[in-house]
């Protein structure tokens, strides 16, 4: 066996006890949907894992009604400490079934078991554990003495971190006292179904969490439903825009966590070993299917060649293949459609004049794969420097001065994340002030924690998930009284400025 060759060490899928068919999870029970069923496949083998029900608008109606009932009769009347106890139970059940969840996620999504086992699933448990403790402490959340839940939350999540995104959405919503109807992404519904089993084991009251599976049309029926009070979406900026239009003029509260094109800025005094690992983790973690991925490497000109050489060397040691193999670094691309998008944008990069380098990986015969790729000689005008590729493709640009780095980093309509690599703390902090991004990682990248707010500036969306700020997305602030001397300012007559009645959602959609 040659250097860097490894014996396969696959995690056994026998821990799974999957059903052949999964229905919708509504009012505490698995029920059949009224739409067609569709298959969920393993993107690594293209084999069918199970068939999934497609929720129709009518099914969504039933789910929302169940959530409303649960909100009115049970969840809004329950004490915060009891809500918290349910969340603690869920956190523990996730921990207990963590291996099973990790295997199912890798199977369904295509991401390496090393990531689902060490990142996704532990964070899911951590998210529930963190927000569980908030449930009976809402008056300390900084939103006034008596913050109120919003009601029924409609949540639509992406396929890149299926179970983790579900946790980011459900945990704060429930802690704040809302009930939930959530729609997983079409290609990754499996772990949401296992999560539904966990909710049954936790004995969570029926209707508090409802799961409707299906394509974009199911999500649209959910976010435009008249009886939801809150819409939370994670996904592409284009769909985010559409949802912002659909929600316009309604009383629904909206948070959006959308695309990104993060700059990862490497100075010549960076801790180079860590920086190389950080760049790799920044763009090749989860096959680059990360909205905050460090997809634009801005490297100081004098160390460009050194950084690129070392990056190529490092990428040549990454192992691509079976997601269930514990050796695997790079798994499968989640779907044929996504693979096509990555290919198209990469080809555009080449035709626009950037220089392409691809790691020499053996591509498995079946499934959807894209080898780690670096583009050098990229200019700011290239499509691969502007558009979110959402794949294992790194675009490299250079800079000479910190001012140039800032200008280039901010030269994007997105503003989700950024990275800085330098040993000079004062420069790092000065740069942090200038970067228009919601999360800045200094001498690290792609770190997530339930205590740490996450979310974007500009067209990367609005609202934060995680921490105290993430809780605020699911609460109505009671606010504090204005100082007595200014109270007249709050008691002005409301005559002339009363709002015209808001339009119905459906009309707004037509725009």
């Amino acid at each position, binding site marked *: 066996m040659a250097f860097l060759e490894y014996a396969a060490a696959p995690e056994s899928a026998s821990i799974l006890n999957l059903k052949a068919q999964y229905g919708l999870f509504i009012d505490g029970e698995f029920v059949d949907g009224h739409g067609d069923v569709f298959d969920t496949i393993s993107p690594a083998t293209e084999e069918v894992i199970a068939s999934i029900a497609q929720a129709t608008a009518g099914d969504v109606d039933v789910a929302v009604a169940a959530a409303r009932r649960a909100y009115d009769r049970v969840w809004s009347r329950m004490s915060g400490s009891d809500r918290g106890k349910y969340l603690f139970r869920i956190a523990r059940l996730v921990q207990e079934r963590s291996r099973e969840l990790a295997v199912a996620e890798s199977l369904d999504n295509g991401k390496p078991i090393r990531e689902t086992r060490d990142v996704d699933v532990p964070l899911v448990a*951590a998210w529930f554990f963190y927000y569980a403790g908030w449930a009976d402490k809402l008056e300390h959340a*900084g939103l006034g003495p008596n913050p109120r839940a919003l009601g029924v939350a409609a949540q639509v999540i992406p396929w890149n971190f299926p179970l983790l995104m579900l946790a980011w959405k459900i945990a704060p919503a429930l802690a704040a006292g809302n009930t939930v109807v959530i729609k997983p992404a079409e290609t990754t519904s499996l772990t949401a179904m296992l999560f539904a089993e966990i909710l049954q084991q936790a004995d969570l009251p029926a209707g508090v969490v409802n799961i409707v599976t299906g394509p974009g049309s199911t999500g649209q029926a959910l976010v435009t439903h008249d009886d939801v009070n809150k819409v939370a979406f994670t996904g592409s*900026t284009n769909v*985010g*825009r559409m949802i*912002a*239009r659909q929600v*316009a*003029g309604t009383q629904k509260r909206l948070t*959006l966590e959308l695309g990104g094109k993060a700059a990862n800025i490497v100075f010549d005094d960076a801790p180079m070993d*860590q920086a190389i690992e950080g760049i790799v983790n920044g763009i090749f973690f989860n096959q680059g299917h990360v909205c905050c991925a460090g997809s634009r490497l801005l490297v100081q000109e004098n160390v460009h060649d050194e950084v690129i050489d070392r990056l190529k060397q490092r990428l040549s040691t990454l192992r691509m293949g079976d997601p269930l193999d514990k050796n695997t670094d790079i798994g499968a691309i989640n779907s044929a459609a996504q693979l096509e998008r990555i290919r198209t944008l990469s080809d555009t990069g080449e035709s626009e004049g950037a220089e392409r380098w691809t790691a020499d990986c053996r591509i498995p015969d079946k499934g959807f794969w894209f080898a780690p790729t670096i583009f050098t000689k990229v200019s700011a005008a290239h499509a691969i420097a502007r558009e979110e590729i959402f794949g294992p493709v790194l675009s490299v640009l250079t800079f000479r001065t910190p001012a140039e780095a800032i200008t280039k980093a901010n030269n994007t*309509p997105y503003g989700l994340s950024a990275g800085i690599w330098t040993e000079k703390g004062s420069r*790092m902090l000065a740069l*942090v*002030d200038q*970067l228009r*991004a*919601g*999360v*800045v*990682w*200094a*001498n*690290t990248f792609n*770190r997530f*924690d339930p*205590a*740490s*707010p996450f*979310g974007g*500036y*500009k*067209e990367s*969306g*609005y609202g*934060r998930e995680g*921490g105290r*700020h993430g809780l605020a997305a699911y609460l109505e*602030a009671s*606010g*504090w009284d*204005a*100082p007595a*001397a*200014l109270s*007249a*300012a*709050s008691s*002005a*007559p*409301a*005559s*002339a*400025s*009363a*709002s*015209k009645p808001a*339009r119905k959602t459906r009309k*707004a959609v037509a*725009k």
Partner: protein
Amino acid sequence: MSRLTVPKTYKLYIGGKFPRSESGRTYEVVAADGAFLANAAKASRKDARDAVVAARAAVGGWAGATAYNRGQVIYRIAELLEGRRAQFVDEIASSEGVSVAEASAQVDLAIDVWVWYAGWADKYAQVAGNANPVSGPYFNLSVPEPTGVVAAVAPQGVAGGSLLGLVSVIAPIVVSGNTVVVVADERAPLSAISLSEVLATSDVPGGVINMLTGSPAEIMPWLAAHADVNALDLTGAGSIDGAKGETWVDLQLAAAETLKRVVAPVAGIPRPALERITAFVETKTVWHTKSML
């Protein structure tokens, strides 16, 4: 024998200067009893766009100023307003048709609202920010920052509100370091323009507060769709009724194209609140590795 008075020409306030509308248009401002008071500039699309350019140019300096400095600058607005209160009482009494006592009370409140918000400049980040206890060897801090350029509509036609409504909208926007393009009360804009004169002689850098007079229904669609505007404050937009029946919802729809932050209309005058400051900030979370010792 009475002296013949010298009336003031009321103009726009953009980038620290007082231009007329580039369109050359004006409209009549009349008293509550219908008597002619002044010709105000009727701002156009071009004026709005010029104002955004001025506001964007001012963001770096204003957001980059120390919070203590911004607090003092805003407090100084209150000082200058206090010194010129008679002029404001006069304009409010004539254009809103209220008593001198009521007009005085409104000016007092407007001054006090400036003072209240001035004090927030170097505190809101402590209240809205966070140290985050993450599970790992990282320093992790979340801090609020201004979102950038905000386009706003002051309360329209609210009795007792032509100055107070305007101040209650712009003060919380600028205190964190945002710059603002605001459309004043269409029917009673005189105190807004006089406030511009206060701003011009205070220490507020040109471009931080840009004042447009004219029709919100005409001007706001351009601002709502403008790609270099980060947020939309529709506080006074509830009564907007455009030529084709457009309402504030159309502004929100336009804002969705560039995912602007939008504050929905409020009836009357918004009460002073920290939430009005935090509505126009972004939370930035910074992680830094801690080394092994």
